[in-house]
């Protein structure tokens, strides 16, 4: 892997050049909250610390997304025949993506593997990640297979050091982005060692021993499903769904048709397994009519069902759900409870 040493003016130059043909976004702080914003290279210093309130899924799984368009004017020859709505749009670069968010894009691309809309977004979006210097109190990426120094899902991974950045080049597109700097700014052996040391240090995790994904995959499904602690969780959960909307790896959606004056579109938008209507049949029968079933489904999907299907946990340890849950449910406790079931 090629490592470059960039100073602050190099970054400025790059941003200015990237901005000519692409849209740039980065986490920016305002009113005490960090959010994703379009940035202007000249007025920009560096990405805000910590993870933005909304996850990176807003870029890959927009809310809402038009899937198809159709006409309902009976005079039109193609009335009621939907056609795909797939605008490619300008290429985007998202700067300052933290390792947890970058990894979530990789995880979501497992269920969305055959989804043409997700694919277009992925093909036209480049991720210039920033590794984390200081974890927040709600961070637990190392429990989930990630790392504060993780690079999965990134095209370029920047690590802040004295006097600039070490940039790991992770994809062909990342290499292209760097232009001539790719050949002129190679990091020295000392700087490479410095990065290696930071990576090693980051591996000293604080979470449960071993790989939770692997341990949970081996546990019997119904033993986890029938655990007694779910009732306690369900008692406090109010099924508000905030966790599912903030979560970078919650990807459930609904599809609805919207028609205005004969022009219609079929859209998909975020849905949540926390909501009772999510599973309700037209007959009125509801397979997850009880709150405990819905709370359990969310955690079981992330920690057992998804790993059974794809391997890794459907969680990157960003801690948004812990930070924002109105009743203080902590997924780390749920993981510990599940791991302790024999």
């Amino acid at each position, binding site marked *: 892997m090629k490592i470059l040493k960039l100073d602050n003016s190099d970054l400025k130059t790059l941003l200015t050049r990237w901005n000519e043909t692409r849209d740039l976004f980065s986490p920016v702080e305002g009113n005490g909250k960090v959010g994703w914003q379009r940035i202007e290279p000249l007025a920009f210093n560096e990405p805000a610390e910590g993870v933005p309130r909304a996850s990176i899924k807003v870029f890959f799984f927009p809310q809402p997304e038009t*899937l*198809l368009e*159709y006409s*309902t004017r009976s005079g039109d020859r193609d*009335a*009621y*025949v*939907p*056609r*795909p709505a*797939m605008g490619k749009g300008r290429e985007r670069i998202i700067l300052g993506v933290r390792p947890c968010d970058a990894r979530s894009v990789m995880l979501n691309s497992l*269920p*969305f593997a*055959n*989804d*043409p809309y997700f694919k277009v977004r992925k093909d036209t979006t480049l991720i210039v990640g920033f590794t984390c210097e200081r974890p927040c109190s709600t961070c637990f990426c190392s429990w989930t297979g990630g790392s504060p120094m993780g690079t999965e899902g990134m095209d370029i991974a920047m690590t802040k050091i004295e006097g600039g950045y070490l940039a790991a080049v992770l994809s062909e597109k990342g290499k292209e982005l760097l232009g001539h700097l790719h050949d002129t700014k190679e990091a020295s052996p000392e700087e490479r060692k410095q990065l290696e040391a930071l990576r090693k240090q980051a591996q000293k995790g604080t979470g449960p021993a071993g790989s939770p994904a692997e341990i949970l995959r081996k546990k019997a*499904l*119904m033993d986890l*499903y029938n655990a007694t602690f779910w009732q306690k969780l369900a008692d406090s959960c109010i099924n508000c769904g905030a966790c599912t909307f903030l979560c970078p790896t919650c*990807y*459930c*959606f*609904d*599809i*609805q*048709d919207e*028609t205005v004056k004969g022009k*219609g579109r*079929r859209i*998909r938008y975020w*849905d949540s*397994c926390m909501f009772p209507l*999510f*599973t*309700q*049949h*037209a*007959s009125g029968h509801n*397979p*997850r009519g009880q709150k405990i*079933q819905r709370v359990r*489904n969310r955690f*079981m*999907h992330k920690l*057992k*069902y998804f790993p*059974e*299907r794809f391997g890794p946990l459907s969680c990157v340890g960003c801690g948004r759900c812990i930070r924002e849950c109105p009743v203080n449910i902590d997924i780390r406790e749920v993981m510990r409870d599940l791991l302790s079931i024999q």
Partner: protein
Amino acid sequence: MKNTDQKNPYLPYPGRIDAITIETEDQNLKTYRIILEKPEDMASWNHIPGQFAMLSLAGKGEIPIGIASSPTEKGHLLFTVNRAGVVTTALHKMDVGARIGIRGPLGNGFPVDEGLKGKNIVIIAGGFAFTTLRATLIYMLAHRQDYGKITVIYGARTPGMLLYKEELKAWSQRDDMEMFVTIDQDAPGWDGLVGFVPTIAGQVAPSPENSAALICGPPIMIKFTMPPLEKIGWTDDQVYLSLENRMKCGLGVCGHCNVGPVYVCKDGPVFTRAEVQKLPVEF
């Protein structure tokens, strides 16, 4: 046979309603004969009995409906639709000639060319859950030599609530299958069997040796049909069920239809009872 070459899996094939049959006396169940508008779409359509498709009404939405026609019935598709929600109500108001989209075929279907070949088949259906079993029966009758004895047990509340009445008569007269049609309570003019499906199944089900049962119906019917079958030695891996759950994408992504780690739309809707027993009861 799955529709993987369709580039955009959300894009339905354009079709038109070719004929509508009112099936039941309450007029809540209608069978729609659909012809895909492009001849090449219709010609390349192929499905496995037990699969379903999304009926797509632009402006109203989509609903997953089991394909009631057999792949051996060429040139059209049949869907029997119960009026229940927004889309089905809109569909029930539509006339012959109206445009409708078809997205599919989706799901796995019954293993008619694998696990079921060479076996004695018992089809047990209740109410309007007979639709994909009709497709299966017609398929099996078209490949009659591939299967052993075929027994069909079908029940509805009243004679007027039975689906496919003309075909039921024709099947009753065939000598290469056994047909038992029953209604819940005796009704004037009815000279057939009277009694619930589980009771009849207990009386007429063949021995489980080299046999498979395909059961579709309300959960309560399935629940009570199992004990009489188990009594004569049937096991859970010989029994195929078709589950249904709320669905949106039909592709195993949107999350609505999961039962534990499986998606009814993608891994199902057909499961053996042995497979279902390992899952949470979330269907």
